[in-house]
């Protein structure tokens, strides 16, 4: 009896609880719960969760002007929107453990309770819907107190500009506290105005205002406005179309074939019968070894095929061929024009004018950019060649292993970086170390090989080539064939961006500075130091210098070491932007020789001029033919061969008897 009583009590309690729940739900509906009721209105669409039909629901929530709207959209976006199956109400769900969720009411923010997953249905928006929600959310985020969120919102607008965002964006500008973000908002609002504002006058005004702007975003906004489509019209052009220009078939812009193809595509003319179709048709109508009365064996010329096909046409077994006269007739009967997608002529005119003015500025900017590029290439060549200018230019020793010294410098940098992880410290250490390593290698080479071969330049060339292949293979054996990274320190990353057209990376600026420093060091050593004086003396008259107490052997050794050491430092610099491989040096050796020869042997200014000329020429050719850097090098070499014709001794030549023959 006690048990039954207890059971009865339980039943009563349960039913009471259920009743209470019912009541609270009822209460929620009764009380002002505007968001819930809004959600209920859109319930069917939300549950269907289809990208095609969802737009009104999102718009309704976003446009409800309820403070809860943002929370709902955010929950929806992250798949935290749940529907309770028992009554169809929507809540935000928070996962507790597996299979169990705590629900929050949107309007009140209060906890409703905990429910097992089986009682609930999760609303899972697909990626398309999520993107639409994100767009809808933007207007809320634009005024978010967190500046990071505001930036994100602006990024979202830039990625997916939409007309609907214009009004909230403009509204948020006034109250924006951050000056930087405000400027960005203003700019994006302007771009949105150009693209989407309903007010045509305002669009034109904004286009004109931005016509001097070099930003890529401006061009990206303006270009769709002037996009055109080639169309063919039978008779007169219909009213109301914004025509860019009329086109005649046979112009550069529109070949006759393309024009006729356009007519065929628009079903304004019958298609041509192609050669392939003729062959297929003929093959389908083989009749006892003949087609249209022509024996198959003769069908190996276009003329015979045309005859056979004509016979088939006459027998009404194939569609007639379109004659050239008919093509001409069709083309004459139609008008071809490029039509703007944008219907408003005022806008297209303004956009064209703005783009023209931007283009002019872009060309100027590109010229500046190209000049910077060429300067940086020139300084790379100069760096690679300056060591050679010393050994080849001053001493007359041709060193084919010069490229391998550059490579050794780069590998030295790599090894130092393996030992010292801090890139700045390792770089500062790598430069003197690379100099020391290659200086030692150069001195060793001079002592062991080159000094026995002075005055025999061709043999020097071959002996140093032997050293070059040995060193290259040695590097391969030690470091393997794959490229090794020589990472620049963080402060050298990135680029100095002047605008969207003109920019230069910091590494290239650093290399340019390094080239200037080298030039200065070289001039200082040659003009202000004892070694320079002795080197010049030995260069000019070895025997005389020897009799004046200068030790030519020592001078040669030091000069050669100096040239090699500079190659090592150049190697570190080159390794920073090129991959360090055993072939690094051989990529630069021919250009280095060219630089020295073109510039004029025995003169550092000549090397500078040579590097500048080669750098500018190569960049110039690349600019004319951007897809093909190989061609640029080919032309450069051709140019050098021709240049040597006119100035066999280089740009800055030694004159008179000092130049020898």
């Amino acid at each position, binding site marked *: 009896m006690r048990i039954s009583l207890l059971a009865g009590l339980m039943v009563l309690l349960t039913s009471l609880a259920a009743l209470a729940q019912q009541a609270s739900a009822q209460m929620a509906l009764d009380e002002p719960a505007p968001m819930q009721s809004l959600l209920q209105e859109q319930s069917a669409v939300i549950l269907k969760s289809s990208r095609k039909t969802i737009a009104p629901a999102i718009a309704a929530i976003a446009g409800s002007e309820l403070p809860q709207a943002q929370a709902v959209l955010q929950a929806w976006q992250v798949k935290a929107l749940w529907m309770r199956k028992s009554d169809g109400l929507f809540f935000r769900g928070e996962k507790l453990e597996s299979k169990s969720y705590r629900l929050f009411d949107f309007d009140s923010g209060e906890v409703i309770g905990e429910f097992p997953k089986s009682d609930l249905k999760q609303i899972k928006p697909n990626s398309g819907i999520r993107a639409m929600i994100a767009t809808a959310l933007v207007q809320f985020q634009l005024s978010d107190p967190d500046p990071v969120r505001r930036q994100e919102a602006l990024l979202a607008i830039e990625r997916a500009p939409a007309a609907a965002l214009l009004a909230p964006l403009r509204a948020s500008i006034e109250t924006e506290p951050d000056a930087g973000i405000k400027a960005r908002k203003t700019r994006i609002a302007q771009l949105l105005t150009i693209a989407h504002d309903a007010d045509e006058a305002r669009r034109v005004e904004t286009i004109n205002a931005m016509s001097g702007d070099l930003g890529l975003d401006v061009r990206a906004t303006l270009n769709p406005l002037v996009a055109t489509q080639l169309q063919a019209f039978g008779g007169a052009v219909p009213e109301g179309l914004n025509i860019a220009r009329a086109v005649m078939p046979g112009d550069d812009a529109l070949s006759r074939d393309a024009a006729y193809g356009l007519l065929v595509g628009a079903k304004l003319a019958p298609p041509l019968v192609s050669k392939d179709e003729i062959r297929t048709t003929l093959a389908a109508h083989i009749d006892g070894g003949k087609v249209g009365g022509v024996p198959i064996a003769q069908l190996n010329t276009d003329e015979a095929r045309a005859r056979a096909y004509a016979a088939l046409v006459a027998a009404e077994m194939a569609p007639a061929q379109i004659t050239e006269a008919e093509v001409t007739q069709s083309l004459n009967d139609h008008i071809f024009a490029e039509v703007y997608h944008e219907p408003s002529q005022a806008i297209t005119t303004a956009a064209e004018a703005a783009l023209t003015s931007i283009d002019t500025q872009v060309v100027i900017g590109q010229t500046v950019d190209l000049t910077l590029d060429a300067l940086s290439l020139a300084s790379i060549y100069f760096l690679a060649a300056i060591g050679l200018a010393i050994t080849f230019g001053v001493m007359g020793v041709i060193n084919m292993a010069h490229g391998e010294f550059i490579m050794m410098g780069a590998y030295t940098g790599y090894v130092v970086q393996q030992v010292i992880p801090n890139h700045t410290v390792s770089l500062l250490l790598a430069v003197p170390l690379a100099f020391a390593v290659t200086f030692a290698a150069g001195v060793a080479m001079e002592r062991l090989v080159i000094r026995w071969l002075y005055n025999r330049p061709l043999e020097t060339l071959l002996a140093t080539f032997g050293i070059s292949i040995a060193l290259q293979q040695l590097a391969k054996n030690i470091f393997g064939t794959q490229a090794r990274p020589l990472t620049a320190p963080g402060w050298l990353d990135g680029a100095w961006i002047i605008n969207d057209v003109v920019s230069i990376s910091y590494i290239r600026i650093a290399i340019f500075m390094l080239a200037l420093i080298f030039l200065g060091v070289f001039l200082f050593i040659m003009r202000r130091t004892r070694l320079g004086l002795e080197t010049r003396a030995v260069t000019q008259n070895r025997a005389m210098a020897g009799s004046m107490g200068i030790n030519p052997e020592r001078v040669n050794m030091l000069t050669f070491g100096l040239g090699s050491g500079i190659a090592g430092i150049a190697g570190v610099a080159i390794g920073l932007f090129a991959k360090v491989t055993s072939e690094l040096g051989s990529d630069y050796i021919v250009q280095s020789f060219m630089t020295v020869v073109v510039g004029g042997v025995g003169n550092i200014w000549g090397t500078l001029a040579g590097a500048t000329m080669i750098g500018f020429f190569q960049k110039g050719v690349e600019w004319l033919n951007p897809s093909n850097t190989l061609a640029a090098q080919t032309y450069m070499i051709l140019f050098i061969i021709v240049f040597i014709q006119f100035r066999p001794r280089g740009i800055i030549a030694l*004159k*008179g*008897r*000092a130049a020898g023959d």
Partner: protein
Amino acid sequence: MSMLLEVSGVSVSFDGFKAINNLSFAIGPAEMRAIIGPNGAGKTTFMDIVTGKTRPDEGRVIWGERNVSLLGMSEARIAREGVGRKFQKPTVFEDQTVLENLLMALRANRSPFAVMFYRSNRADLDRVEELASEIGLLESLARKSGELSHGQKQWLEIGMLLAQEPRLLLVDEPAAGMTPAEREHTTAILVEAAKTRAVVVVEHDMEFVRRLDCRVTVLHEGAVLAEGSLDHVTANSQVIDVYLGR
């Protein structure tokens, strides 16, 4: 007597230094002439201009009966016109035999194809032997010229010059480094050559010049200072100043 070579108003400068300054000079078809002058007087540069090695900045160099200009011709072309040159330092092809050296110099068609199909014949060999005996190298025809003594090389070069049969011989210090006996021989060869052609000898050694017994041109600072017999020019006070110092 018409002139074989006429150099008039020639100037040339290297990096601002005037090596030859408004020089004029002429020599007949069969004449011996000695050019003397202190170092830097422009003797070698003068030869360079005549042989086409150096282009003058201004002036004319007129050659032969047809009065053709030598300016603008290549060295090889000028040599084929009949100007032979002997360098100060003996330059013979040391890796080749005396015979090969002389054969190469022997007057003949110089075009590559003619030379390729050339094979030595009796007449040419006779001529070479004649020359070789003249320069005292008959015994050494088969030797590499690199094995010869300094004086022998000088003679070989003179022999090669004669083999070219030039109409004008330019000889730069032929007696340098020779023994007195060798000098005598050299003098004899040159005097003999001057009977049929023009010979210009550049020399420092007054004794040697005196033995040549010919007109002398004195160069100084790229221009002609005096001209005449040796006794005449050595009596000239300017010449004495230049040679003995001011």
